[in-house]
C-alpha cells in the first residue's frame, strides 16, 4: 500500500515490573516513564494505525494525526537545511517534541503477563503509569500467543467499550475466546477507506460433493485414530471469509490508497467484520440472469443495482447480533467505524519466490533432484559473491528497478553503489555485502530456495457465490481439482503445485490444474492475481484448512516439485466445539489465560524431527510406516494445540514420540510393553534436525561446542583429533566406545532427510569460501558535504557515538538471548536509530554539518577502528544526498535487456544512466 499507516509508539511493560512498583497508597504505579527511558528498558514498541488507535485519537480530540505528522516531518526536513544551527536548534527541538506527542499513544499499553496470578491482580486492581490509570481492554489473537494483553486508559474505557460492542445484542451467546478474537479486529493495522454505496450481507455458499479423505481423531488416551473415508459426502463453505465488491469500488479504494489499478483483492476490516473482497461485476451477472433483488441474511430484499459491496455471513461474524444491515451500519457510523484495508493484493505477481523447509521436507528426492533444486539458489549467490557491484545492486535492490524509483532513494550502500561504484572499496560496504551473502547462504541451508513461484490470495469461486446469491443452482465455473490463475494461464502453464504454511505432511500439498475459458476470463477479469479455487473438492481441508479471509498460498511451476508430488487424500481432523455462553469480563480473562503461549510451532518442529528420523530407515520397514503415520497425525496435534487456546479439552502429542526417557523400560514392564518401548525408542524424534542449527543460534552454539569439546577430549584421551579418529580404520576398544558415544550424543539429528541434504550441499559449496578482502585505501570525502564545525560539536557527537555503540551492542546481546523475531529486531533497531538521530539533530540541526562530523568520527584515520554503522544509520540519507550533488544527480542501475552484458540469475541486464530531476529541483528549492 502506498498510503502507509504511521507507526505509533506505545509502552510494553512486564507484569512483574508493574507489580513491583507499589506507591505509598499501596497501588501499582510507575512514575516518570518517558520515551527515552522506556526505549532503553526495551519497553517501547511501535504499532501501526488501527481502528482502536483512531478512536483513541478521536476521543483525545486529535484530528488528522497522520497529516500533522507528515507536516512536522516536512518542516523538520527544511530546518535541517538551515545553516545557522543556533537558530534552528530550538525550533527543531520543538518539532521533535511535537512529533513525539503525536506518535506516542499514552492511553494504550501492552502488558506482557508473566503468570496467570499477575494477570488476575492487574485486572482486579489496575495500575497507574505516569498518572494515568489503566484497566484491561482485550487480548489480540497474536498478542495472547505471546502473553500480551492490551490495557487502556480507565477514563476512556466506557467510550472504548461502547465502541468495541458497537451496539451489538449483548445477550447473545458466544465462545469467549472467539468473541475476544472478533473484538481484537479493532487492533488490526489498517488504512480507512470510503463507505461503499450499498452494502449487503448474504448467507454463505455451501456446496456438497463426494470425496475421499483420511479422517483423524484422537482416542481417550490421546493416540490418533485414522480412518480412510472413500467417496463420502462432504460439505464445503466455498465463501468462507470472502465477499465481492463492484470493480469501481475496488478502483476507488485503490485510488484512496494511492494505487492506480483496480485492486485484484483486498483484506478488509470493520466492526466484527473480517475478510477478503474480490472485484466481481455481480450486478451484470444478476442482470444477465434476470435477477433484480437479492435477499440478505436477515431476509430483507435489496435492489442489486444499489449494492456495491457483498459481504458473506462468515465475514460479518456477529451479523445475528444486529437486526438488519441498517442497524449494523448505523452503529458503525455512530461509533466511528469505517471500512478499512489491512492488505491488498499486488498488481503483478513475482516470477520467483523462495520455499521454506516445510514445503519440501516431505518429498522423496534423489541426490540429482536436490542438485537441480538447489542450483538456481547457488547460482544466485555465486553471482554476487565475486563483488561485481552491478550484481550486488541487482541482488540488493531487486531485478525490476524502475524509473519512478528515483524519488525515494534509500540511504544505504547499494544506493551509493548506483551513484559511485568506487564505494565498493569502503570496508563498511564490503562488510555489508559479506553479511548479506552470509545471510543468504544461511537461509539456503534451511531450505529457503529460489523456485519459479508466487504467493497469491486464496479465493473461492465467485461464480458459485453469485449463483448462490441469486438463488440459482450452484455449479461454479471450475470443476474438481481445477483452479483459475491469470498469472499461470498467461505463462501457458497448466499444472502447478500449491503449498500453504503451516504444513506438516505430504497430504497437505496439492497438484492443481490451471484452466481458463473465455467465460472465466470474462467473469474473473478483475481478479488478476488471486488463485481461484473450485467449489467441488477438499483442497481447503487438505491445505491445513485454509479459508478465504486473507490466507495466501504459494504456487509453483517447478518441474521437479510437480514430478515428485504424490497426490494423497486430504486429512480431515474432527473438530471439537467449546461451549457458548454470554461472556462476562471474567470469562474473557479466563479465555486469555487459556490462550497464553503457542504450541503450534513446537508441534511443527517435532514433526520435522520425525522426517529426519524417518530418513534413517528403509522405506517399507515398520519404523518407516509408523513414522509416516505419526507425521500425518501431526496435523491433528496442531489442530489440538489451536483448540486448546479456545478452551477445548484436547490431547497433546504423546510424549514417547519425542522424549527418549519416556521410552525407558521399567522393571515391572511386561515383555510386550518392553518391545513396544524399544520400538518407540528407535523412532523417538527427540532431536532437532541438523539444518536447524541455522535457525536456532543457541542450537548451533550447542552443536559447535559439542563438536569442539569432543575434539579436545579426543586429543586429550587419544592424542589425535576427532577427524583422525573417524578416519582411523583400526580403532582400539576405548576409541570405538568414544566414537559411538560421540555419534549417539550429538545434539542434532544427522540422518539424511531432504533438508539436511540440502544443508550439506550448500555447506559444501560455500563454507570457508567467503571472506572480506580489503586491499585498497578508501577516501571517504566522497561522502562528505564540506562543512566546517567546532571541536565542541565533535566532542558532543562523539559522546553520542559511544553511547549508541554501547546500546547497539547491548541490544544485540539482548536480542540474541531473548530469541526475538526479525520484525522485532528491525523495530528495535529502528527505534534506536530514530532516538539517536533525534539526539544528533538536537545537538547539530544542520544535516550537512552533522554528516561531516559523524563521518570524521567514523571514517577518519585516527578513528579507523570506529564502527561505520553509526554514520550510515544517522546520516545515510545525507551521504546519498552529498554523493548525488557531486554527481549532478546522476545514477546508473541495471535494467532487464535481452542484449545486455550483465548476466544475473540466468537473465540479461544492461546499465542505464538517469538524472534525478525531481530530486534536483527539490534540493535547489530547499537550498
Amino acid at each position, binding site marked *: 500500500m502506498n498510503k502507509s499507516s504511521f507507526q505509533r509508539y506505545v509502552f510494553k511493560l512486564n507484569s512483574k515490573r508493574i507489580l513491583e512498583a507499589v506507591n505509598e497508597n499501596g497501588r501499582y504505579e510507575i512514575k516518570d516513564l518517558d520515551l527515552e527511558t522506556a526505549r532503553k528498558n526495551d519497553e517501547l514498541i511501535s504499532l501501526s494505525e488501527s481502528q482502536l488507535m483512531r478512536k483513541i485519537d478521536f476521543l483525545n480530540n486529535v484530528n488528522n494525526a497522520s497529516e500533522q505528522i507528515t507536516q512536522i516531518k516536512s518542516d523538520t526536513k527544511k530546518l535541517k537545511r538551515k545553516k545557522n544551527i543556533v537558530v534552528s536548534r530550538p525550533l527543531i527541538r520543538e518539532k521533535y517534541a511535537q512529533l513525539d506527542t503525536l506518535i506516542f499513544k499514552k492511553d494504550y499499553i501492552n502488558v506482557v503477563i508473566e503468570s496467570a496470578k499477575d494477570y488476575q491482580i492487574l485486572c482486579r486492581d489496575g495500575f497507574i503509569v505516569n498518572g494515568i490509570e489503566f484497566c484491561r481492554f482485550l487480548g489480540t489473537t497474536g498478542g495472547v500467543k505471546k502473553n500480551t494483553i492490551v490495557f487502556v486508559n480507565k477514563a476512556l474505557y466506557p467510550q472504548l467499550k461502547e465502541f468495541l460492542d458497537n451496539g451489538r445484542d449483548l445477550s447473545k451467546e458466544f465462545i469467549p475466546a472467539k468473541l475476544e478474537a472478533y473484538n481484537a479486529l479493532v487492533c488490526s493495522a489498517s488504512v480507512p477507506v470510503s463507505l461503499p454505496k450499498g452494502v449487503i450481507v448474504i448467507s454463505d455458499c455451501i456446496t456438497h460433493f463426494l470425496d475421499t479423505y483420511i479422517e483423524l481423531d484422537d482416542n481417550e488416551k490421546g493416540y490418533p485414530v485414522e480412518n480412510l473415508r472413500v467417496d463420502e459426502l462432504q460439505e464445503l463453505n466455498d465463501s468462507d471469509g470472502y465477499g465481492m465488491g463492484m470493480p469501481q469500488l475496488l478502483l476507488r479504494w485503490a485510488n484512496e490508497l494511492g494505487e492506480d489499478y483496480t485492486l485484484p483483492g483486498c483484506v478488509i476490516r470493520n466492526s466484527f467484520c473480517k475478510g477478503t473482497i474480490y472485484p466481481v461485476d455481480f450486478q451484470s451477472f444478476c442482470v444477465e440472469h434476470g435477477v433484480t433483488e437479492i435477499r440478505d441474511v436477515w431476509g430483507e430484499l435489496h435492489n442489486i443495482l444499489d449494492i456495491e459491496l457483498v459481504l458473506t455471513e462468515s465475514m460479518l461474524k456477529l451479523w445475528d447480533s444486529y437486526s438488519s444491515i441498517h442497524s449494523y451500519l448505523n452503529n458503525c457510523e455512530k461509533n466511528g467505524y469505517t471500512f478499512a484495508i489491512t492488505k491488498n493484493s499486488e498488481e503483478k505477481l513475482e516470477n520467483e519466490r523462495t520455499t521454506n523447509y516445510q514445503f519440501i521436507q516431505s518429498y522423496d528426492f534423489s541426490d540429482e533432484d536436490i542438485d537441480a533444486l538447489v542450483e538456481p539458489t547457488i547460482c544466485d549467490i555465486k553471482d554476487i559473491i565475486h563483488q561485481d557491484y552491478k550484481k550486488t545492486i541487482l541482488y540488493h535492490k531487486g531485478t525490476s528497478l524502475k524509473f519512478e524509483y528515483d524519488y525515494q532513494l534509500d540511504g544505504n550502500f547499494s544506493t551509493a553503489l548506483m551513484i559511485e561504484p568506487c564505494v565498493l572499496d569502503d570496508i563498511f560496504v564490503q562488510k555489508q555485502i559479506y553479511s548479506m551473502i552470509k545471510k543468504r547462504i544461511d537461509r539456503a541451508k534451511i531450505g529457503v530456495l529460489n523456485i519459479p513461484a508466487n504467493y497469491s490470495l486464496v479465493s473461492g469461486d465467485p461464480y458459485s457465490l453469485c449463483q448462490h446469491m441469486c438463488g440459482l443452482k450452484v455449479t461454479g465455473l471450475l470443476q474438481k481439482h481445477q483452479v483459475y490463475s491469470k498469472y499461470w494461464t498467461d505463462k501457458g502453464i497448466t499444472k502447478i503445485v500449491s503449498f500453504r504454511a503451516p504444513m506438516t505432511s505430504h497430504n497437505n500439498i496439492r497438484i492443481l490444474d490451471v484452466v481458463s475459458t473465455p467465460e472465466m476470463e470474462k467473469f474473473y477479469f478483475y481478479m488478476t492475481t488471486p488463485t481461484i479455487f473450485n467449489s467441488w473438492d477438499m483442497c481447503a481441508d487438505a491445505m491445513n484448512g485454509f479459508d478465504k479471509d486473507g490466507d495466501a498460498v504459494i504456487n509453483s511451476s517447478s518441474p521437479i516439485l510437480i514430478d515428485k508430488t504424490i497426490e494423497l487424500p486430504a486429512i480431515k481432523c474432527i473438530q471439537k466445539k467449546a461451549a457458548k455462553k454470554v461472556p462476562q469480563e471474567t470469562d474473557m480473562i479466563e479465555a486469555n489465560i487459556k490462550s497464553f503461549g503457542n504450541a503450534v510451532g513446537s508441534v511443527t518442529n517435532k514433526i520435522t524431527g520425525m522426517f529426519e528420523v524417518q530418513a534413517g530407515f528403509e522405506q517399507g520397514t515398520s519404523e518407516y510406516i509408523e513414522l509416516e503415520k505419526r507425521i500425518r497425525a501431526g496435523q491433528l496435534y496442531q489442530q489440538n494445540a489451536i483448540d486448546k487456546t479456545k478452551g477445548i479439552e484436547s490431547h497433546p502429542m504423546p510424549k514417547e514420540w519425542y522424549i527418549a526417557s519416556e521410552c525407558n523400560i521399567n522393571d515391572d514392564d511386561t515383555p510386550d510393553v518392553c518391545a513396544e518401548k524399544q520400538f518407540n525408542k528407535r523412532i523417538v524424534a527427540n532431536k532437532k534436525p541438523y539444518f536447524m542449527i541455522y535457525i536456532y543460534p543457541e542450537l548451533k552454539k550447542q552443536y559447535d561446542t559439542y563438536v569442539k569439546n569432543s575434539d579436545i*577430549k579426543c586429543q586429550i584421551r587419544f592424542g589425535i583429533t576427532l577427524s583422525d579418529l573417524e578416519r582411523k580404520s583400526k580403532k582400539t576398544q576405548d576409541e570405538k566406545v568414544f566414537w559411538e558415544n560421540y555419534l549417539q550424543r550429538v545434539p542434532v539429528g544427522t540422518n539424511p532427510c531432504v533438508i539436511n541434504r540440502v544443508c550439506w550441499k550448500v555447506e559444501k559449496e560455500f563454507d570457508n569460501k567467503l571472506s572480506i578482502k580489503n586491499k585498497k585505501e578508501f577516501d571517504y570525502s566522497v561522502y562528505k558535504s564540506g562543512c566546517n564545525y567546532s571541536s565542541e560539536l565533535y566532542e558532543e557527537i562523539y559522546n553520542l557515538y559511544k553511547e549508541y555503540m554501547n546500546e547497539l551492542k547491548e541490544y544485540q546481546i539482548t536480542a540474541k538471548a531473548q530469541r526475538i523475531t526479525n520484525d522485532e529486531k528491525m523495530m528495535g533497531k529502528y527505534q534506536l536509530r530514530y532516538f539517536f538521530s533525534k539526539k544528533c539533530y538536537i545537538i547539530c540541526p544542520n544535516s550537512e554539518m552533522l554528516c561531516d562530523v559523524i563521518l570524521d568520527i567514523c571514517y577518519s584515520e585516527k578513528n579507523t577502528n570506529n564502527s561505520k554503522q553509526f554514520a550510515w544509520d544517522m546520516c545515510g540519507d545525507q551521504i546519498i544526498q552529498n554523493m548525488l550533488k557531486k554527481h549532478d544527480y546522476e545514477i546508473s542501475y541495471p535494467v532487464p535487456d535481452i542484449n545486455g552484458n550483465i548476466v544475473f540469475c540466468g537473465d540479461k541486464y544492461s546499465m542505464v544512466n538517469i538524472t534525478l530531476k525531481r530530486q534536483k529541483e527539490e534540493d535547489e528549492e530547499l537550498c
Partner: protein
Amino acid sequence: MLVLNERDYAKYVLENGIIEKNPSQTISLLARYLKKEIKEDEQRIYDECKANGLTYRKKTNAQIRPLVQEKINNFFKEYYPYYTETKWKKIIRQIVINKNCSLRETEYIPIYKSELQQIDMLSSISTQKTFFTMLVIAKLYNLDSSTNNNWVNTNIKDIFKLANTVVKKSNQKYSILHELFSLGYIHCSNKNENLNMQISPSIIINQSDEEPILKIPTLTNLGYEYIRYRKLGYFRRCKKCNTLFRTKKYDRKSSICPSCLAKENVLVKINQCEKCGKSYTTQRKDNKSKLCSDCQKKHSKELSKARNEQYYHRIMTLSN
C-alpha cells in the same frame, strides 16, 4: 575470577567499584557477601537483645533478599556504565534468590612434598606448571565441597592462563594434557563433551599432618609460584594484591605488580561535589572538576538551555 578470600575481595569490589567482564559473577559474589553480612548483623543484634533480656525477631530470607537486591542495584547504578535498572533487576533478583550465603574464606592452599615430587617427575616445565595449577584448583574446589573428589571444573584456557603456560598452537595444550592423561595424573569425565578433569587420588593430598612445602596465598600466576619454588626465575610478591610477578635479578625496588602500577597511574582520587555533596571519583591529575558527573551534566544542560533560549528570544524579537 578465583579468589581465596571472597569476603575480603567483596569488600574490595564494593570499595573500588570493580565489575568483572561477566557482571553476573560480581552480582553472585555480592549477593552471597551481602546476604552473609546482613545475616551476621541480625545474629549480632539478636544476641545483644537476648543478653539484655529483650526480644528481637530476626529478618527472614524473604525480608533480606530485597535489601540485598537494592544494594547490588545501587552499586551497579554507580559503577556500571549505561546500566539500565529494569533490564538488570530481573537478573539480579534471580541470582539473589538462587545464591546461598556461603563465602570462601581460605588463607592459602597447601602443597605437600610428595605432590611436588610427583610433579617434578613430569617431562617439561610447561607440563609441570600446568599440572601444578590443576592441583591447586582441585584443592580449592575440594575445600568448597566435600563431594568435589579432586575435580578441576575450570576451562582449559583459564588453566593455562593461570599456569602462565604459553603455547604457540592450541593443540599443544591438548598434547600437555594428553601426556598427563597417559601418565595417569589426570582422569577425564565419561561424557565426551565434558572437559572437566580429575586429579588422580594417588597424587593429591587433601589432609596431612606434615607441614606444607608451599602455601599458595593467591590464585593468580600459579605457574610463577611453581617456577619460584623450582628457583627458575626471579619473582616478587605485590604489596597490593599479593600476586607474584617477575622481576629482574637485581631489581630490589619494584614492590607493586605491573597491573597494580597501571591502575595506580590511571587511578582516581575522590572529590566532593560542590552542588550535591556526593563524593565522586576523578582522575588523579584532574584539578578542574568540581561537580559529580550527574550535576555536571545538569549544569551543562542548564548552561546550554539558557544560551539557546537567549538566542531564540533574540531571533524571535528580530523576526517580529
